[in-house]
């Protein structure tokens, strides 16, 4: 601390004063008292320049700190602040910023003024004071030693681990926080970066500074290159540790120890827990479900699995699906529902929504008037009042409304014993309905969707038609639900915005899925509209749809930040070989 060495003879009374003050402060703190009269003492001392410090008077003015746990650090800070204030107030030259050069006062040694200057903005550390005292002692061996019976003041503790530490010019020990790492992710600190960071704090020349040694735990997977000062490697375990490094400010200087902290995050994939659900909760649901069907012209492979975020807390799977077939007319009915994570019985909401809609659609469509689509006109508008046949889109809208009312009924008259009366909001769920039928003109598909997730129609090699438009808000996770009455209130608007249909001579697959799949696979609305993304998904799915267990396994893919429940129903042509 060369900048703190006294340059000319300081008044012995200064070290006496600081010494006495420090001893008194330490004693007072042991008594649970604090900083009563620092301000006055500093003022008196500066004004009189005598051995004016009266320990008894000072003690008497102490205040109790039982309700106010100020440390001795605060008192030292107060001492420095007061000294600065009273010295700078006596000058007209500069009131805002203390300048040692402005105060060539005889009784105040320059090192003390410099110390005040350095601490003008920085937080004053007790160590700066203790260094200053040491410097005074070295210069003036005639200065009175501390009385033997006095305990060592708290203010000047023996340095803990290393006799020498890198400090800022103000005397604050420097501690470097190395960038955080994560287990399994490559980690690198570029050559010379640590040395430059320390040099900048110490006003050393960064070009000449270097790190001689950095002590890293043996098995942590990181290595320090002493030649370049770089750190690299792949962290092998989590760490939260104080490390030591040896800093050399210039080629001729001796190395000085410096603390460095290093934090290595755990690998997020290792933290997921798979907790069982509460067996006593109402509305039990298995965490995994998978089924496959051969229905008329179609083969259907469906799977649904509890997301990691739910498994981690032992929550239920909130997704559900239901598949049905009107055998006499050849209509395939698929329903996929995603219960809201924020609604406590949404697992039941999604079950009711999918099953009610499926059952009603199958029974309605299993009637001769729906045996053929007729011309495309009849899809849009049955027109003739004599024709009981209603437009497909009306049927889908009614199925969604029926789902809403059945959920409301359950909320108001629950079949299971609930701990408290419930409301429909606790059953919030999305709903995607898909109808398919093979006609003379080709494969017809129609969807109706409330909420997020989505469905699409794929034809190899490159064609893909999204069949839904997700209801999203400005932020992630915002959507609407079939359980919210306003979602279904306006029929005309619903038929326009929620209904979609297509007819193609052939198809490869039609997929309906919840947002657990669409979020990671279609990162934006633009991606959802892009056939390339659909075919990229299909390339992954093709081997997985050979059976539903394989599909369930595929759905366990890892995607950072996407850990919701996942449900996917793949409709394939019946002719498709099972091991395609």
């Amino acid at each position: 601390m060369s900048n703190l060495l006294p340059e000319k003879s300081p008044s012995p009374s200064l070290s006496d004063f600081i010494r006495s003050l420090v001893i008194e402060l330490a004693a007072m703190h042991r008594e649970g008292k604090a900083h009563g009269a620092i301000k006055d003492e500093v003022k008196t001392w500066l004004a009189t320049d005598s051995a004016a410090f009266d320990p008894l008077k000072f003690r008497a003015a102490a205040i109790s700190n039982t309700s106010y746990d100020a440390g001795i650090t605060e008192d030292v800070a107060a001492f420095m602040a007061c000294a600065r204030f009273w010295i700078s107030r006596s000058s007209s030259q500069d009131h805002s910023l203390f300048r040692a050069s402005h105060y060539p006062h005889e009784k105040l040694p320059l090192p003390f003024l410099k110390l005040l200057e350095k601490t003008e903005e920085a937080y004053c550390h007790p160590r700066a004071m203790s260094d200053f005292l040491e410097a005074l002692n070295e210069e003036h061996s005639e200065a009175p030693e501390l009385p033997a019976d006095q305990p060592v003041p708290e203010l000047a503790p023996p340095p803990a681990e290393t006799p020498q530490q890198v400090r800022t010019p103000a005397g604050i020990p420097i501690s470097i926080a190395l960038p955080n790492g994560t287990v399994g992710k490559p980690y690198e600190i570029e050559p010379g970066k640590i040395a430059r960071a320390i040099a900048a704090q110490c006003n050393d020349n960064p070009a000449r500074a270097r790190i001689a040694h950095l002590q890293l735990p043996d098995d942590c997977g990181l290595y320090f290159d002493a030649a370049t000062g770089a750190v690299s490697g792949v962290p092998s375990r989590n760490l939260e540790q104080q490390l030591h490094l040896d800093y050399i400010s210039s080629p001729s200087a001796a190395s000085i120890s410096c603390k460095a902290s290093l934090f290595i995050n755990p690998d997020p994939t290792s933290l997921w827990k798979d907790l069982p659900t509460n067996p006593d909760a109402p509305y039990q649901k298995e965490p995994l479900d998978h089924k496959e069907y051969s229905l008329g012209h179609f083969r259907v492979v469906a799977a649904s699995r509890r997301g990691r975020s739910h498994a981690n807390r032992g929550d239920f799977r909130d997704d559900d699906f239901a598949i049905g077939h009107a055998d006499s007319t050849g209509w395939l009915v698929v329903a996929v529902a995603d219960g809201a994570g924020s609604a406590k019985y949404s697992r039941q909401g999604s079950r009711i929504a999918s099953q009610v809609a499926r059952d009603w659609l199958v029974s309605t469509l299993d009637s001769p008037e729906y045996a053929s689509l007729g011309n495309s006109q009849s899809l849009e508008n049955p027109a003739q009042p004599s024709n009981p046949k209603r437009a497909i889109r009306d049927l889908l809208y009614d199925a969604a409304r029926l789902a809403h009312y059945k959920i409301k009924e359950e909320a108001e008259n629950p079949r299971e014993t609930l701990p408290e009366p419930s409301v429909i909001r606790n059953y919030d769920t999305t709903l995607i309905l898909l109808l398919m039928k093979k006609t003379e003109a080709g494969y017809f598909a129609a969807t109706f969707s409330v909420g997020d997730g989505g469905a699409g129609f794929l034809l190899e090699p490159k064609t893909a038609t999204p069949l839904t438009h997700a209801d999203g808000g400005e932020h992630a996770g915002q959507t609407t639900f079939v359980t919210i009455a306003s979602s279904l209130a306006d029929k005309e608007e619903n038929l326009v915005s929620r209904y979609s249909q297509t007819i193609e001579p052939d198809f490869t697959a039609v997929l309906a899925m919840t947002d657990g799949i669409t979020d990671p696979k279609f990162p934006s609305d633009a991606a959802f509209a892009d056939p390339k993304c659909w075919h990229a998904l299909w390339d992954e799915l093709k081997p997985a749809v050979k059976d539903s267990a394989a599909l369930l396994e595929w759905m366990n893919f890892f995607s950072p930040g996407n850990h919701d429940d996942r449900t996917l129903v793949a409709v394939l042509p019946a002719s498709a070989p099972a091991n395609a």
Partner: protein
Amino acid sequence: MSVRRLPVYLVLDTSGSMRGEPIQSLKVGVQSLISSLRQDPHALESVYISIITFDNEARVLSPLESLETFQTPLIDCPQSGATMTGAALELLCQCMDREVRKNTETDKGDWRPLAFLMTDGSPSDTALYNAMAEEVRRRPFASVIACAAGIKAKHEPLKKLTENIFNLETMDGHSFAGLFQWVSSTVSSGNRSMGASASITLPPPPPEIQVVI
């Protein structure tokens, strides 16, 4: 593909009255919040943290940064002075408008942010505070939670800001540890899928925290 972030703003009172044990406990509390969130895999992947402190003025102590790379800053407080809570809320709104991403055609937006305000006094800048409390309410925070710490903290101004007010009777290490543990579980539950209008359901607070009604 960028991960959808869950922005979490900690707005902390560092006015002079926090000196001593309260500020120390607060520091330890923030550190333990970070540590416990790092044990939550979902949080580790999606939580972004920002710390705003206020005393005579408000400042962004830590800009929004991922939990993975976040380094807890030095939290300090002046000897005395005003409690510019209004300025802090103004800064919170500015940060949110600038930092929180919305859904666009080509990008998924962030989760709606969470904000925690901890204060041990009452706002000195009352007019600004009242105006800014309304501004905060207009913004799509998933939840704004206010914590009145210590006996001098006033509840009335906080009611203008949010319905979620909690009282911390003492400001010792134990109380702050409880508070931040609870904040951590709130942040974890903020990761769940939320409805367009629904506000998140807060987990039950620990016994040291009293719900203010």
